[in-house]
């Protein structure tokens, strides 16, 4: 189910208030997204843990494809 960029970004901001967040609509259909999140909160966490945190932030949305990139800085 498509999600608007504003909706997606605000869902991520809620979970990562201090992060630098970028959302890219990969296919122009608002259903295939790539998100890049830079947040010191990821420091010391495995990639799997980092991605899980992002998945949790958008768990209420049914996004067809969500590519995740995370970094601590």
């Amino acid at each position, binding site marked *: 189910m498509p999600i608007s960029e504003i909706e997606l970004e605000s869902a991520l901001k809620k979970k990562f208030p201090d992060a630098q967040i970028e959302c890219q609509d990969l296919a122009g259909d608002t259903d295939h997204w790539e998100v890049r999140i830079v947040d010191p909160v990821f420091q010391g966490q495995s*990639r*799997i843990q980092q*991605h*899980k945190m992002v*998945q949790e932030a958008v*768990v209420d949305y049914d996004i067809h*494809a969500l*590519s*995740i*990139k995370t970094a601590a800085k």
Partner: protein
Amino acid sequence: MDQKAVLETIKSQITENDIVLYMKGTKETPQCGFSSAVSKLLTELQLPYIAVNVLENPDLREGIKEYTDWPTIPQLYVKGEFVGGYDIVRESYETGELQDVLKDKGLLSQS
């Protein structure tokens, strides 16, 4: 298949095989771009692996998500351990971390 049996099946698949890829479609005919990409990457590394087509078994498709506590497919297991989905496998391949893990586990030669 009841749920307990599904989780047991997964457990034995990942412990009895060194590398298991849960994917949509088969190695020869993947049904999803992400599944296809991970499958190709394993082939590129010349790694023997078992591919489990979750589209053939809806119980397994839901079961693997629950077993790993991970919402998407593909899922890659190495020596019984969840390594990641497409994004993580791709990224750790690019940084060489994936190869290091495989070498540590004796599945990839040290060269």
